[in-house]
């Protein structure tokens, strides 16, 4: 008898409907920009997406206080990179004892953002910054060099400027 009653009167369907109904009511009657919004959609361009401090973004060469590039071309990052995207050419600069990278090419196209290079660098001269807007319109923009070639290692990729969040 109990089983017949349970099949006749749809309690289980009613319970399911009540759960989704509660969610509908909460999202419908609360504006979507309270302090803690009930919905889980993050409106990305309008509200800038926050990333954790250890986020692995794009490779950048660092400069010390005098504006000198810290890299000393020990080629550790070039060896440790699993997909071999870093190519460094050693060169000399007059006022500096340590060697100076003439060309530091980084192919963001094949980089897998594993942060082995930063870990293997003994001189803390490269980091992965917190930038995640890395799209580009054509393939050449992905091979980033030190100077010129449109994008270089120091500024964020130009596409980042389109985000509406600025205004």
């Amino acid at each position, binding site marked *: 008898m109990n089983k017949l009653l349970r099949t006749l009167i749809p309690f289980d369907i009613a319970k399911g409907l009540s759960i989704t109904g509660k969610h509908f009511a909460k999202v419908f009657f609360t504006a979507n920009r309270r302090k803690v919004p009930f919905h889980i959609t993050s409106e990305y361009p309008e509200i800038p997406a926050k990333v954790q401090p250890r986020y692995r973004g794009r490779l950048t060469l660092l400069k010390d206080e005098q504006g000198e590039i810290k890299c000393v071309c020990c080629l550790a990052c*070039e*060896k440790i990179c699993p997909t*071999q995207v870093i190519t460094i050419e050693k060169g000399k600069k007059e006022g500096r004892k340590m060697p100076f990278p003439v*060309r530091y*090419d980084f192919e963001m196209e094949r980089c897998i953002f594993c942060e082995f290079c930063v870990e293997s660098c003994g001189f803390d001269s490269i980091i992965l910054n917190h930038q995640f807007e890395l799209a580009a319109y054509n*393939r*050449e923009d992905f*091979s980033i*060099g030190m100077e010129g070639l449109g994008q270089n290692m120091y500024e964020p990729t130009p596409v980042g400027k389109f985000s509406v969040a600025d205004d």
Partner: protein
Amino acid sequence: MSDETLPQPSESPEAPAGPYIYDYAASPQRQVVMPKTVPLPSLRTYEAEVKAAVAADEAKWQKMLADFETAKAKAEAEGKEAPKPPVRPVPRKDDNDLKTPWPQEAKDDDLHRLQERLGGKVEEIFEQAGELTCQVSKEAILEALQLCRQDIALNYEMLADQTATHYPAATGFAFSVVYHLTSISRRKRLRLRILVPEEFSPESACAVYPSANWMEREIYDMLGIRFANHPDMTRILCPEDWEGHPLRKDYPVVGWGQRDIAFREDRGGMLERIALQKAGQLGINLKQPKAE
């Protein structure tokens, strides 16, 4: 300071004569470095090695003593003072947490039971890093598997994994096929190993453990070992008409290039040539990671 005296940036680095065609055939990735040693872990080779190492060490020490004697004799002859007596080089104490697990004598009773049940067919049994290994002759593998499956004392219900490794530098055999058995009830693991020459096709384990079906197909696909009376011995991962077996040591990482799709779908190859020209200037080269 008219602008001529300033260093004129050359309008472009000396442009290479023709279009820079990246020669895949000669790329470092396609060169194959054949392994010279045969890293097949076994108790006999390890003991032989240790003996050889001790002997070499002893010989070196004797040679040092002999040199010392001759140097002393020569010093007396010219009246100079005697050189310092050589001190035995004490092995460097590495304090780090790394203790390499060497093969030890087989103390586990499973291995001994296998030894006395299979008798001559078992070539070697030893323990390493807490794992039991038993090397069986290549003809008796099916019998060993049946024994492990049906014997109440052994009772290895599941064949967890079956793989093979290619040893080009080895004499007498080319592959080692490894079976990892798990006994769920007795919570034990065992590794059966057979050494297979190039053209020999070992018995398929599907009769005893049906789970070996796909594993053996993958071994055939990757290494080219055909297993006798296997339900359907075809390639599983690569396309059916793929030439060559990728996991062999003489197969280059980038492949023979028989299926190289165009750098991009541009039919004319115009964009590809431009990109490779730029690649030439950027010096993008696919280098082999040399681990010094």
